[in-house]
């Protein structure tokens, strides 16, 4: 950890929102290189708004994994992952790649897929995958971007806790710095260096995880008895959050 | 294999455009059109034999299409009606009427009426009682189905047909005029007399249900018209040879396509009356 070094990004009293509507007012925070940040807060608390702002400001350094996955169901897994580096090839090369996959890209993506448990699915259209598989394709696309920094909007929401750990490990392996929005509080404490907690349009919590316990995190959620994290995951999975 | 296919395709695309100087003709579509191409192919073969050039027949669907084809040099010779011939010769300076059918020097239209109207035939003219009935012409630019009937209607009643009749329609075709009057859809109609006679002879019309009211005075109608530039393109004297070939046509099978007994010479001046009537009615300008 390099807390003392100059931050990668500093927000100082910034208002964030869409158009005129301010979602997060007067936001102040630092993001340091090498830090793994868990972003917590209720649905609608502004997690996505904050991530979008980070993504805008850090543009070229960011591997991005959106909440809605943003996959193209009609295209094969291979092409969806390939999209992570679309800007590094000419339009012609990209067009040709749709007809005939580029050999090097294919090999790299095949290796990536194997690590994510997607082996053998490269040619399959994303439309035919399960929710968890799609989630992993979205992560694979972000990993394929090969950036310093990973920004994920609930990238492990629709996979089981065991797999969530594995995916987070993979993300860590390839990115020095990450900001990941999630709902699983235990995971936030066990796996991340720092927690940003949003509530009522403010950054309510900004502390290293070693200073926090579950009760601190529960305060981010208005209901006194926060639902158990695993049921939370299940409910979201059942709701077809893909 | 693929290359072979491509070559075959290419050759197929390029060949048809090569044959440039084919002599083409057409005929306005107002007679029986069944096996039209087949029948006119025989006329084409006859002309090819007489003229020693390739001759093709181009089928058309309307009077105006025949005139357009003539104007645009897609055909050099055409069997026109009286009015369409005048239209064509006005649009193509130098073109001339060559020959007409022996019937065409004194052609007629029939006014026919459904028997349910109770109208009676007469020698003098149309009965005054036709006013207020419904009426149909044939095609809009047909000489015998539109132009001359309208001329005589206006002369006798001094009124536009739309004012004289309760409804005025354009059936588009002589055969259809007969069918529509026979079924009583229209009370009265105007038809080409040769089409009427043929329909009666072949029993295609029930003369108890529909009958002839009045026959118009004679006027010139159908004719062969040729473009003025054919001598330059097909050789000196070509126009004269075409005329002779038409006049010499004696095979009843060929003549039945028109249907005429024989062709006789004609020239542009024969059609001055038609031109005047056309201008009067605003169909020519």
């Amino acid at each position, binding site marked *: 950890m390099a807390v003392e070094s100059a931050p990668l990004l500093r927000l100082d009293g910034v208002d964030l929102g869409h158009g005129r509507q301010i979602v997060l007012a007067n936001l102040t925070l630092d993001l340091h290189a090498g830090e793994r940040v868990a972003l917590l807060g209720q649905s609608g608390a502004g997690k996505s708004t904050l991530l979008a702002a980070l993504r805008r400001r850090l543009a070229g350094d960011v591997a991005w994994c959106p909440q809605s996955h*943003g996959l193209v169901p009609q295209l094969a897994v291979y092409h969806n992952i390939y999209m992570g580096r679309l800007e590094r090839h000419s339009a012609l090369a990209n067009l040709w790649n749709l007809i005939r996959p580029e050999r090097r890209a294919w090999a790299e993506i095949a290796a990536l897929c194997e690590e994510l448990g997607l082996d053998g699915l490269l040619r399959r259209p994303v439309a035919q995958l399960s929710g968890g598989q799609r989630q992993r394709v979205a992560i694979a696309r972000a990993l394929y971007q090969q950036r310093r920094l990973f920004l994920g909007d609930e990238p492990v929401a629709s996979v089981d806790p065991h797999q969530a750990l594995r995916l987070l490990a993979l993300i860590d392996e390839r990115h020095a710095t990450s900001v990941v929005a999630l709902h699983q509080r235990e995971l936030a404490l066990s796996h991340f260096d720092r927690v940003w907690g949003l509530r009522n349009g403010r950054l309510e919590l900004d502390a290293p995880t070693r200073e926090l316990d579950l009760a601190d995190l529960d305060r981010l959620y208005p209901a006194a008895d926060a639902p158990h994290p695993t049921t939370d995951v299940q409910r979201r999975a059942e709701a077809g959050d893909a | 294999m693929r290359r072979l296919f491509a070559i075959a395709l290419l050759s197929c695309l390029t060949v048809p455009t090569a044959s440039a100087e084919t002599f083409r003709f057409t005929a306005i*579509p107002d007679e029986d059109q069944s096996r039209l191409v087949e029948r006119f192919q025989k006329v084409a073969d006859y002309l090819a034999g007489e003229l020693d050039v390739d001759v093709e027949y181009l089928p058309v669907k309307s009077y105006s299409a025949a005139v357009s084809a003539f104007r645009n040099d897609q055909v050099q010779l055409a069997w026109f009606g009286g009015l369409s011939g005048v239209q064509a010769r006005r649009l193509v300076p130098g073109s001339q009427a060559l020959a007409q059918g022996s019937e065409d020097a004194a052609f007629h239209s029939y006014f026919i009426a459904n028997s349910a109207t109770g109208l009676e035939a007469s020698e003098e003219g149309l009965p005054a009682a036709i006013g207020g009935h419904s009426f149909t012409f044939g095609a809009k630019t047909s000489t015998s189905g539109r132009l001359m009937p309208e001329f005589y209607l206006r002369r006798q009643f001094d009124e536009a047909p739309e004012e004289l009749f309760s409804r005025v329609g354009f059936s588009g075709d002589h055969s259809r005029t007969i069918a529509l009057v026979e079924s009583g859809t229209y009370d009265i109609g105007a038809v080409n007399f040769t089409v009427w006679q043929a329909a009666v002879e072949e029993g295609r019309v029930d003369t108890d249900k529909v009958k002839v009211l009045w026959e118009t005075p004679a006027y010139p109608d159908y004719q062969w018209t040729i473009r003025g530039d054919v001598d330059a393109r097909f050789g000196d004297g070509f126009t004269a040879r075409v005329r002779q070939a038409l006049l010499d046509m004696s095979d009843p099978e060929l003549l039945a396509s028109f249907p005429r007994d024989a062709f006789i010479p004609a020239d542009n001046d024969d059609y001055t009356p038609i031109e005047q009537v056309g201008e009067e009615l605003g169909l020519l300008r």
Partner: protein
Amino acid sequence: MRERVPGALRGDSPGLSLARRSLMLVALCLLALPFADLAIIAHDPWAELARMAGGLAWPSWSALVSPLHAIALTVGVALWGTALGVLLGFPLALIFARSRLVRAGCAFVRAIHELFWALLFLQVFGFSAVTALAALAVPYAGIFAKVYAEILEQTPGTAAASLPPGVDRLSRFIYTELPLVWSRLTAYTRYRFECSLRASVLLGFVGLPTLGFHLESAFREGRYHEAGALLWLFYLLIGSIGLWSHRRLVPWLLLASLFVLGPWPQVDGGLLWRFVSQDLWPAPLREGDWSGLIAWFTEIPDLLPAIANTLLLGLMGTVGALLVALLVWPLASRHFGNRPSRFAGKAVLVGLRSTPELMLAFIFLLLLGPSMLPAWLALALHNGALLAFLAARHADNLQPGMPGLTASGRYAYELLPRLYPGLLALLFYRAEVIIRETALLGMLGVATLGFHIDSSFEYLMFDQAFFLLLVTAMINIAVDALARRYRPRDVVMDDPCSR
């Protein structure tokens, strides 16, 4: 206290607003009816109708001269007309939203019926495949541009938004936009192909030797056995589209049909130039003779009654189509009847929407006599059957929530409420098409704009025809704008074939 039943049509719910709009349309039609000439004047149509029925019942296959060539040409013209329309229309769709000029141009080419385009191109290209292809491709380019643009506009943006920054426009389009809407684009293209098949037959009516060429001659001259055979061929062709227009087969069909489309005419540049620079414009205008131009205007047949008739027939046709569609869609839906009844219902709908309106109109002309009535019935039945077909297809994708309802209950409570918004939206789209088709029925003696356009072409007064075409196009564009203003919004047009 008893709760009062609210005023039947008060309130803001979407259902009520739909009902108000429909009733308004019907009321407007009823108000206009007294101005329409709807007399029934027929004495004895049965002999002719019996002959027609006999022809359809005992088609004479041997009378057909070259049916295979006619079919091949019909299909070839439809395929290539559609393909060229796509080639022209797709790039236009990409700039459709941005360019007012493109939108106006597309609205104009769409507003003129294929048959009138054919009459225009005929003057330059003669009776050749070029005329037929241009007559289809030009208006279809406008239609494709509009519909493709609408479909593309509805592309979900999430995939494009998740791309890394710096991706070029083309790559973004082919990876994250095109695949998402591909199925809707192809579904619409297929539907348009079916339309073009019908249009291709219709082009025969002006002289291109497709099936319609022989059909029209045979029908016009009362050779009903031959006409019957041709009509059956046509129904079969339309009914079997699904069998022979497989995705893999289409390229081969395209290639093979090239052989029947020739010979290609040599396009005479002088002819083209003369037509565009002289024939289409009034002589006084070309010569700058203003008083002559006024005289030219006075020669134009009564414009206002023609416009009134066109609009009247269009309105009546639209309302008629709605009523027909409401009545007959259950015939072809899986929610009603049994297997044979559905098959028969589908066949009736295919028959009604494939039979050229002109023929339907002629049959009614015989039955009912010359008035606006035959044209109205023909428009209502043809378009109503088309709407019913789409409504039935929509209904088949619905799952009734309450099993065991009676048929009328199912119709009124389960299905119609869910179908109706889409049906009405379709109808408002269709209004423009119906107006365009009124032009065709002018030949029945109903003095619509189409009647006068046809006359002008017959009298070879192309300047007049062109002027009337411009007027027609303006009216079409106005009607389309009006229909768009009042068509139900927020209806998910999941069936792109609606337009």
